[in-house]
């Protein structure tokens, strides 16, 4: 976590945004992120992001649920305390299908949501720097990270030429911190890193 310098360009149309993304990437600038008010399909590919493997996590959580349910019911009904229920078999697999199924779904869903929150670093009480407040309303906000070699003005001009409506430079913390949105917070500037 560090304070870094960013050049921010805001676009108001995804039709302008897409060519701008490929231009910026071709020019060799490092796109820190693009903030959009809704999922813009294809933007992740345009930015060269890899596919998410969240669904794989979901599958594994689901399997955990299945295994937990079957093994626990088997253990408690055949080993720990076998109860004679109307002379029916203790190992009654067909009758356990509903619970096994429900536990599979439950673990897959809960596990996936927790994984999602962990990966995206989302939790109540977490605060992050927002480059443009309208990024959750109607603007597509492209943020380019400045390196030691970056010429700020050049990037700004480049973005403006690519169709950005608003261009500015911001020095900001790129991670998250515990904070409240109704209070201003001063972050330490001493450890500013222009990597």
């Amino acid at each position, binding site marked *: 976590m560090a304070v870094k310098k960013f050049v921010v360009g805001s676009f108001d149309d995804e039709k302008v945004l897409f060519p701008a993304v490929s231009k910026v990437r071709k020019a060799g600038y490092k796109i820190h992120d693009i903030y959009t008010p809704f999922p813009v399909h294809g933007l992740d590919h345009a930015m060269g992001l890899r596919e998410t493997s969240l669904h794989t996590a979901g599958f594994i959580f689901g399997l955990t649920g299945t295994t937990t349910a079957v093994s626990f019911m088997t253990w408690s009904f055949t080993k720990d305390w076998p109860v004679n229920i109307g002379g029916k078999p203790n190992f009654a697999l067909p009758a356990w299908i509903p619970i096994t199924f429900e536990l599979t779904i*439950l673990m897959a869903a809960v596990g996936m949501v927790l994984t999602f929150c962990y990966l*995206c670093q989302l939790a109540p009480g977490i605060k992050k720097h927002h480059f443009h407040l309208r990024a959750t309303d109607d603007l597509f906000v492209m943020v380019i990270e400045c390196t030691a070699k970056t010429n700020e003005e050049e990037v700004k001009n480049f973005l403006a030429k690519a169709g950005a409506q608003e261009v500015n430079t911001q020095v900001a913390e790129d991670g998250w911190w515990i904070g409240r949105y*109704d209070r201003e917070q001063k972050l330490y500037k001493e450890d500013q890193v222009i990597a």
Partner: protein
Amino acid sequence: MSLIKYESPIREPLVDGKKTYHDVTEDICHTIEAKPSRLWYIGFGISLVFLLFGVYSVYREVVYGIGQWNVNRTINWGWDITNFVWWVGIGHAGTLISAILLLFRQGWRTGVNRAAEAMTIFAVMCAGQFPIFHMGRVWVAFFTLPYPNTRGPLWPNYNSPLMWDVFAISTYFTVSLLFWYSGLIPDLATVRDRAKTKFRKHFYGITSFGWTGSTKHWQRHESLSLVLAGLSTPLVLSVHTIVSFDFATSVIPGWHTTIFPPYFVAGAIFSGFAMVQTLMLVARKVMNLQDYITLGHIEAMNKVIVLTGSIVGVAYLTELFMAWYSQVPYEMDIFFKYRIAGAYGWSYWLMMTCNVISPQLFWFKKLRRNILFTFIMSIVVNIGMWFERFVIIVTSLYRDYLPSSWSVYYRPTIWEVGFYVGTFGLFFTCFFLFAKYFPVIAIAEIKHVLKTTGESYKADMAPLEKMDVDKFYHETHHDDHHEGGTVTVKHH
């Protein structure tokens, strides 16, 4: 995006009016930011009174016992379980709309899914109260959970449908809640970023979990929604199936039938959609959302109602036929002596009229698109569906195998009714709070479909329709050719 090309020009727009992204935000956030109307206060007040009456009724039941109700050893599942099944059924539409219609790529779901999901969660909350308090000794309700206890440990009976219910309902509630809330996070962030007051900044700051709208986060969010939808689809079908097992696995005539799972699921969707209609018709008027919940939406839901209503009708007739076809005297008696006739015959015919005959009027397009008629029908359907559960439970129980224990006419006590009224209070209290403090329409999802299905955009589509497919593809697919000519074939 390739879908634009094939979007039928005949299909109605999903969002009416010439709207920009910002207009969508404004329209939907308006109710959150404006002071609530007098109507809201009145509605909320009435709901609270109902809720308090319910709390008092439950208090009496807990303190004095089940004797506060008129259920007895013969009719041991009276109003209480009727209400349970009714509320669970209502709780099915939300997940159906958000999950199954998502998988079927039904674009119209975006207008109503958020409110329908909220309705699901509140309905399941109401449903859960009934079996819990029906236990009588509610303070030992946790005995149903498999935890290491000092009684052995003695484990709950996993072979029992009542135990399956515990798992099904709690899983359904949890997963619906997660699905609903994960969809809400980006919209709460929208509200947070426009907030002017200190309270709103803080409240939506906490509830939006620090959402930024990063592309990577959106990518994961999409994946999460899709998988949760995939998980919820079998889940929603399983829940009412398991509820129907409470009846179907017993040996009571009139319950012991294999048709129950599909019949219950269809009935659940039927009543759930009716409840969505009741709420949405009021909400779109009061909250000025006619552009988002259009006549097209109402008509689409009415089509689902006529379909599921017909399935329910077929199930009723099949039951009657099977009772005769089996020639089992007990089955025959239940259906032909005590169900369609007898002391409770009126409830059977009320159910038949409300559920089977009246929804058939929705075959007429004029009536499907008539708001007042739809509103009346939505209430009629839910009355019918309540009586369906009442008929199933009471008519099968009041004449059991032993004539000496045949029950007299069953009437609920005021506290039994009070409990039911109380859940209405709970449901509407939650719904009023939701409508005031949360975006009732999925803002991000509407924006996502705006350019392909919004009224103003559809008008400009005529030249696109005429365009050559290859040319169109190259002009609209920026995402497909990047990095040294690798073509990612991924159309959404």
